[in-house]
């Protein structure tokens, strides 16, 4: 997905960047700084457990996160520096790693124009954005060297939605003959408030407004600092890549989703995670000549070590005061308190070999991962603490076949075993770490020409004895075998110069096989259309470039627990712009139809009304989506 598609509609943050991925639904249910909840290809990936996210080599998913497995916070990524989005659906490639269950999304970075770019935006709800970027015009540094910084703050579209964040990203690419050196560094800080989740019946009865707040003290603080250094060596048709990275991520968030259901002073939880991650990858691709046949070989090894300290405490809704941990005894309530530190290490090796006789292409690959966890649970045994070690191997098979029909058409089929690592805190001492093993297959057709690209695919996956890790209480629920299936269709076309249309539609199905019941929350129908038009003209000796774009998102009703369905969502975003010389002025309108829509919709029991007569049944809850938002941006390119 190239920059022209990215630029077609307003992209103001991580949610917009995620929605670029065909079939992906991203819900921002707890404020501007929390990782989005993701739904893709029949999977409810919660906060990232089934989607591998990567930014220019930096892993985004956090292993064994206190809030959710594979927690993938993309809020640090500045939309203006995303040059390309690469989506690898399913798990058919050997290089796809942890959490690549529904697929892998990789964002490549770069600034569009050389020179200095500065932008100032002001939007509804007092949202202000300052952006500055610089891309040197030096051939040795390539097109992808830049440095950029962004500061955004706003009051939000309702109470307790205020936030501010600062993010800076610098990328260096130095070309030295056959060797290219790369470096990437980022820094990010944010503080945000969250309005919580509202009961639908409270809104319908007029007790609360659509954009109101439930609970106090919700929100979070996040800092993320990352660095990556890499080298690419291209020699005689082979390419060797070495990358090493380090991440420092500190997250603190507070949520109270259930009110006073479990605790008369409030069910709110404060969760903290401090993670130090280091890792390295070595990849090598080359051609092998076997007789008169040529084989393409791809090999890789990787190491990743996450040192994590994580904690959880309950807090009182009235005062925000944290509660002390409660220890054993028959009358002990569920252990809301967590205080653990662990090292989670993974060593990986993968390889693929491809053979392309004539119009055919066959690929066979495999991937081996070995996970080791050493964990100290500081609250175990009434605060005495304990140490646990766990380990586990995983082998995944990858295979694919393609057949070309002429220059523009390819039929493909692939198979891949994807996996996700378990939650470290859940494992017993000496336990063989249970990976979730996902067997996925895909059959599709791709058509590509100069002005037109289209693809259609049917996909399916099977998970034996799928389990769900309940991050709030640290237990695992096995739900039996699950299957997912569906189809996806996408098209991108430039019918005439200056006009772009890109559309994709995904249908999906997910169910428990033994119980013949639907899995809750997945997105059965997702559609996205982006279209833009531009036609430069001369005016008074100056080139004037107008720009019009529109983006439409449709998300069909999603199954909720207890056989209910969520509301359908239809959103239209639009942008108008004008550029002349170094000056660009644009107007972005998000949710142009001003739909009253629910970004997140859930079904569970909550108790915000303390009266004895208040319902204890599971009830519909929602987080409000943003109303119509206008953003005016003045951008200078010098």
């Amino acid at each position, binding site marked *: 997905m190239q920059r022209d598609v990215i630029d077609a509609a307003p992209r103001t943050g991580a949610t917009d960047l995620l929605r670029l991925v065909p079939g992906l639904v991203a819900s921002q249910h707890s404020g501007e700084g929390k990782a989005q909840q993701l739904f893709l290809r029949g999977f409810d990936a919660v906060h990232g457990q089934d989607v591998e996210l990567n930014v220019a080599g930096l892993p985004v998913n956090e292993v064994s996160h206190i809030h959710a497995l594979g927690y993938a916070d993309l809020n640090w990524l500045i939309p203006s520096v995303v040059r390309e989005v690469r989506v690898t659906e399913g798990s058919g490639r050997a290089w796809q790693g942890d959490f690549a269950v529904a697929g892998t999304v990789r964002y490549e970075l770069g600034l569009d124009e050389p020179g200095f770019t500065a932008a100032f935006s002001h939007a509804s709800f007092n949202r202000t954005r300052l952006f500055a970027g610089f891309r040197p015009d030096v051939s040795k540094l390539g097109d992808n060297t830049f440095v950029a910084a962004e500061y955004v703050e706003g009051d939000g579209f309702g109470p307790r939605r205020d936030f501010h964040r600062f993010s800076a990203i610098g990328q260096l690419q130095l070309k030295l003959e056959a060797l290219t050196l790369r470096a990437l560094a980022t820094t990010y800080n944010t503080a945000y408030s969250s309005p919580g989740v509202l009961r639908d019946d409270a809104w319908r009865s007029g007790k609360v407004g659509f954009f109101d707040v439930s609970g106090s003290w919700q929100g979070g603080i996040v800092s993320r600092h990352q660095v990556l250094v890499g080298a690419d060596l291209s020699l005689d048709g082979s390419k060797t890549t070495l990358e090493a990275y380090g991440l420092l991520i500190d997250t603190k968030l507070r949520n109270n989703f259930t009110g006073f259901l479990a605790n008369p002073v409030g069910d709110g939880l404060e969760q903290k995670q401090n993670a130090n991650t280091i890792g390295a990858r070595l990849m090598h691709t080359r051609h092998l000549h076997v007789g008169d046949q040529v084989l393409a070989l791809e090999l890789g090894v990787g190491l990743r070590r996450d040192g994590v300290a994580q904690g959880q405490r309950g807090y009182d809704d009235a005062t925000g005061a944290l509660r002390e941990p409660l220890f054993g005894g028959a009358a002990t309530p569920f252990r809301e308190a967590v205080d653990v530190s662990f090292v989670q290490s993974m060593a990986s090796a993968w390889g693929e070999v491809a053979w392309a006789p004539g119009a055919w292409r066959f690929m066979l690959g495999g991937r081996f991962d070995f996970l080791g966890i050493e964990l100290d649970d500081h609250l175990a045994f009434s605060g005495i603490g304990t140490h646990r070690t766990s380990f586990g191997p995983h082998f995944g098979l990858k295979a694919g076949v393609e057949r070309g029909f002429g220059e523009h058409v390819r039929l493909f089929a692939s198979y891949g075993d994807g996996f996700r690592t378990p939650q470290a805190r859940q494992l017993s001492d000496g336990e063989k770490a249970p990976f979730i093993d996902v067997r996925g297959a895909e059959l599709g057709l791709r058509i590509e020409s100069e002005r037109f690209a289209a693809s259609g695919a049917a996909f399916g996956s099977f998970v034996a004895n799928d389990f*769900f890790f309940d991050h709030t209480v640290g237990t695992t*629920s096995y739900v039996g075998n699950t299957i997912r299936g569906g189809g996806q269709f996408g098209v991108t076309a430039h019918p005439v110069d200056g006009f772009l249309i890109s559309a994709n539609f995904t*249908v999906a199905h997910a169910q428990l096989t033994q119980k013949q019941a639907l899995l809750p*929350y997945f997105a059965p129908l997702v559609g996205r259309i982006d279209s833009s038009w531009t036609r430069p003209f001369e005016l008074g000796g100056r080139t004037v470039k107008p720009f019009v774009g529109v983006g439409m998102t449709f998300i069909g009703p999603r199954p909720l627990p207890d056989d209910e369905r969520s509301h359908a969502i239809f959103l239209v975003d639009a942008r108008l712009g004008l550029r002349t010389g170094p000056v660009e002025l644009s107007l972005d309108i998000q949710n142009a139809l001003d739909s009253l829509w629910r970004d997140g919709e859930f079904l569970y029991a909550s108790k915000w009304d303390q009266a004895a*007569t208040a319902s204890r049944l599971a009830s519909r809850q929602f987080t409000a989506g943003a109303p119509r938002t206008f953003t005016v941006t003045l951008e200078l390119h010098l």
Partner: protein
Amino acid sequence: MKSSLLAIALVFTACGGTERSRVSYPVTVSGGGAMVTTDSGWTVTLTRATAHLDAVRFFEGKVVLAKNVKPQWWRSLLVSTAYAHPGHYVPGEALGEFVGPLDADLLTTTPLAWGTADGLTGEQGSLQLTFATAGLEVAGTATKDTLSVPFTASFTPAYAIEGVRSEHVVGKNELGVDVRIDLTHIFSRVDFAQVGSSASPLDPMSPAFNGFGRGVIDSSAYVVTWKEN
């Protein structure tokens, strides 16, 4: 072929249901006869037995001495669910409820309609009954041999009656559920020879009143019967 196409169409439009469905079913309350016998041999003829009720709730947790009840896994896809703890009885998730006042005359022989409960299909294990502030009011005469003790009493439990056994798999077409308040059970511990300073009303410090109160809070005094489909 046609059915295959239909099946495929269903697969891709996410028809079918998640594990549970919404249902509703009528709730009735019944008492029994006006004559009960206590463990200590008293025959009690009741002239009044009125239960003032506020709410009935059905839960997944079965009545066992000690068990963890996990919330249904999908409840935790987003939220921190109210989590059960290792106690002696854990209600777990609410699977049905009717909230509304009822002054039930327990001396009538026909069940009294209380209301229509909203609930979910699936396996439930226990019931919780909430009394209104007036609790259970009784009046009558207890006789044993030549003794005759006219009495009145009123007792309101401090908490809802929890852990009433109600093991039933709720289907989509439930005809209704009856909660019988077993007055024999409630009076079983009452010894009218120990009424303390007064029988009408019963002396709240007396063993007789104590037995009456224990009877009201005894969860086995409430018998749940689901109507056969």
